[in-house]
């Protein structure tokens, strides 16, 4: 045992020695950053276990690197990573349970700083101008302590916080406005609040379907997809798609799904078509037409559709293991016919797919 350890120590010493030599004798030429081009998968890990991680995958080279944040920076990402906001050369990783935002260079994953104060149960980040906006649930059971925190993009310092309705989740920026979808924390909400970034206050609350979970902007329209209340709510409600006119900030039209058991998610715009998921199936919606009733196809390989993205005519689905322990998978499908193009192992409980 000791002998083995000794050998290991020698081996390590030798390796580090030779590395030093290498760098001294022949400096590495300037090369493309390690994560210049590829797929970033955020793995939230297990609640309370601080095993969140980031995987980097390049499907052309069949490259799959796990735990890149930890490897590059030498410390753990934290507990329950919720989302990443990419902006210019920055990646802002919102780590929910750790109450922090780790900010890295998106191409090298080298840390540029962290925001660790004035956050409480943070969910998503969005950039407008030179400010970072972060939604926070506060105490999930308390409907009155939810807020959007505002930080300075230049030095990550805290500016102010804006009190908002319960359960602020995803945000989308448009000109100087920020639209915040309120899913409702531990309970249910049905609002989009509109924050004017010039005065940093809520100027309007717009009622949409129950549990708005995804938004996309098309021209002068904000499309909001709401899941509807789940079966265990007091009253189950059907999903609803709403179009908000960005000029008037009023709901111009809304479409409710025909059955209260239909709970859509993941609204994505590709060209002029909208895609959404219901369960593990993909549905296509052409604006102006009725809501889709038949699926395009189903993602059979997926245990649980947890992270979803459409990018360059491919569908990316991040799926945890069925019991939410152990490593998950990233499945890549052809958007047109749903055929499985590729699949990769990820870290624990992947919940988001992003692209460099």
């Amino acid at each position, binding site marked *: 045992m000791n002998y083995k350890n000794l050998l290991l120590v020698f081996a390590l010493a030798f390796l580090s020695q030779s590395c030093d030599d290498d760098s001294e004798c022949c400096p590495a030429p300037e090369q493309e950053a390690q994560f210049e081009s590829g797929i970033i998968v955020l793995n939230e890990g*297990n*609640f*309370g*276990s*601080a*095993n969140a991680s980031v995987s980097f995958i390049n499907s052309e080279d069949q490259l799959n690197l796990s735990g890149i944040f930890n490897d590059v920076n030498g410390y753990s990402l*934290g*507990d329950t990573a919720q989302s990443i906001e990419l902006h210019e050369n920055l990646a802002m990783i919102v780590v929910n*349970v*750790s109450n922090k935002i780790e900010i890295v260079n998106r191409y090298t994953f080298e840390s540029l700083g962290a925001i660790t104060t004035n956050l409480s149960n943070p969910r998503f980040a969005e950039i407008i101008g030179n400010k970072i906006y972060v939604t926070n649930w506060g*105490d999930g*059971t308390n409907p009155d302590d939810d807020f959007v925190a505002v930080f300075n993009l230049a030095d990550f310092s805290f500016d102010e916080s804006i009190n908002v309705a319960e359960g602020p989740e995803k945000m989308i920026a448009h000109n100087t406005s920020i639209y915040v979808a309120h899913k409702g924390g531990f309970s249910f909400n049905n609002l989009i609040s509109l924050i004017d970034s010039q005065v940093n206050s809520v100027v309007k609350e717009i009622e949409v379907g129950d549990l708005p979970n995804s938004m996309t902007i098309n021209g002068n329209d904000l499309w909001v997809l709401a899941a509807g209340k*789940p*079966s*265990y709510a007091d009253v189950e409600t059907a999903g609803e798609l709403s179009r908000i006119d960005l000029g008037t900030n009023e709901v111009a039209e809304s479409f409710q799904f025909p059955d209260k058991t239909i*709970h859509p998610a993941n609204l994505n715009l590709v060209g002029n078509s909208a895609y959404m998921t219901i*369960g*593990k199936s993909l549905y296509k919606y052409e604006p102006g037409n009725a809501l889709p009733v038949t699926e395009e196809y189903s993602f059979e390989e997926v245990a*649980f*559709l947890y992270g979803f993205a459409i990018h360059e005519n491919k569908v990316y689905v991040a799926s945890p*293991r*069925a*019991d*939410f*322990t*152990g*490593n998950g998978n990233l499945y890549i499908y052809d958007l047109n016919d749903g055929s499985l193009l590729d699949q990769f192992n990820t870290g*624990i409980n992947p919940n988001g797919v992003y692209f460099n």
Partner: protein
Amino acid sequence: MKKLLNLLFTISICCCTSASAQIDSINWLDEVVLSDAKLINNSKAQLVRKLEDSVIQQSEPLLTSLLKFNSPFFFRENGYGMVASASVRGTGAAQTAVVWNGININSQFTGQTDFNTINTRVYDNVSVKPGGGSVVYGSGAIGGTIHLNDDFQFNGSVNNRISTGVGSFETIQANYKGDFSSEKTSLSIGISGISSVNDYKYTGTELINENGDFYNASVNASIAHWLDSRHLLKFYSNYYQGERGFSGTINLNSNSKYVDENSRNLLEWKYFSGNLNSNLKFAWIKEKFEYYENRESSEFNFGEAETAIIKYDLGYRITDNTKLNVIADYTDVNGEGTGIFHAKRKIGGISFLWDHNIEKFNYQLSFRQEITDSYKSPLLFSAGLSFQLSENYLLRFNSSRNFRMPTINDLFWQNGGNPDLDPETSLQAEIGSGIVFENFKIDLSAYVIDIENLIRWTPDATGLWRPVNTKEVYNYGIEAFAEWKTSFYGNDLNLTGTYAFTRSIDKETDNQLIYVPGNKATISAGYSIKRFSLNLQSLYNGSIYTSSDNEYQLDGYTLANLGVSYTLNTKPEINLSATIDNAFNKKYESLPSRIMPGRSYRTTLTLKF
């Protein structure tokens, strides 16, 4: 003359009846003395290991610590004094039944018993029985059963024991146990309490265990009284009350609080007549909890369940070597709580237990069928054979079908409860042998268990976590219990050890189930030198997987507790002891990010009179 004859006749009748009454109860002595005679009489082909009183006294008072160091069973703990569950023979937390005086006391909500809510000092004895036992002990008796029993004596004895102790992290405990008996009446009372600030340091970090404070108090009383020579009444009562901060993990602070209260009452009326033994039982069990997400707030979630059981057991000794028991019972459960409205469950059951000795050979057959509206109930059975091949060697076989019913949460919880669940069922077989060489005893078992319809909470397509009958699993393994009483330099040395090799395999993936160590071993030693005694308790837990793909694991660990005690006075007996727990300050966790205490100290003063 006629008067004299009459008198003689009367006397002879009296003698006869009193003689036969004596025989009646002698015939059924176990039924008189024990609270759960079936543990001995109907498990002849399985191992029942009673833990020595001295072992219980030198262990920490809560059941988790006692069994962790003195059985091959594995325990998952959220922290010292926090929620703890067992894995016996590689099974899950709800697949071990805790049985109080013959009555299954696993929670109706979770299907498990929190082993840190049981204070061992209030019971007369604690026994462990690895292997299935659903025919007699009902739901959850798949991996094994753990028995908390009260015994009765009718010999005029009076025994009192008072013990108090203090330890690290401001832990204070005290208990009293008193046994009193006359020829007709036997009374036993146990009272205990423990409290701790429990702010231990997470070994290897700068953090401390915050919000882990707890206290609990237990009272256990049992009384038996002969109404006449054939009628014996027994009454048992147990009450527990506890309050705990639920500590967070190393990454996650917690500010929650859990308050729970359990009461259990059991009335038994036994009647003995010749070869007949009739036993009527009424049990009434109540469990209640309140969970405060924020302990400063008055908002809480709660659950409350009441269980009433009526059971009639008729035993008949057909010959000296053959015995039949027929048992009919009815159980009524009513529960409610946050997200659970009027959960009701009614279960009727009938059982037959057959026991036959043929010289050195014994076989037992038993069957049980339950009828309930809540789930489909399988026919349960147990078949056992044992051969006493020689004084030194016992060989046994047992096969049984056991089950675990869906809990109230599984069936009735509004946020996902599934009323269509089937019970988990298991078919198992074991072979065991007990070997005795003078002062050395060893018992070895090998087993296989096939479990179907495992209930697992998994998210459905809409993201709602629901329980479904999903996995199929097979377990196999080896268990050993050894004991050696010897002397060393003229003083008594007692050594005991246990070992378990466990495989618990998901049939779909061939992976080991999470939180099941492949190896566990314990070694205890006690050495007495005059008024001093030294003792060691140690364990090894092998590594456990924390993910079903077996990609992540927690390291194994070895722990040792060292203790010394000194008898200051023998009549009354006064004893002072000091123990170093986790003497080598090993950093260990049985659940991820939940670090257990490092080195700590406790002292105990015990008075017996």
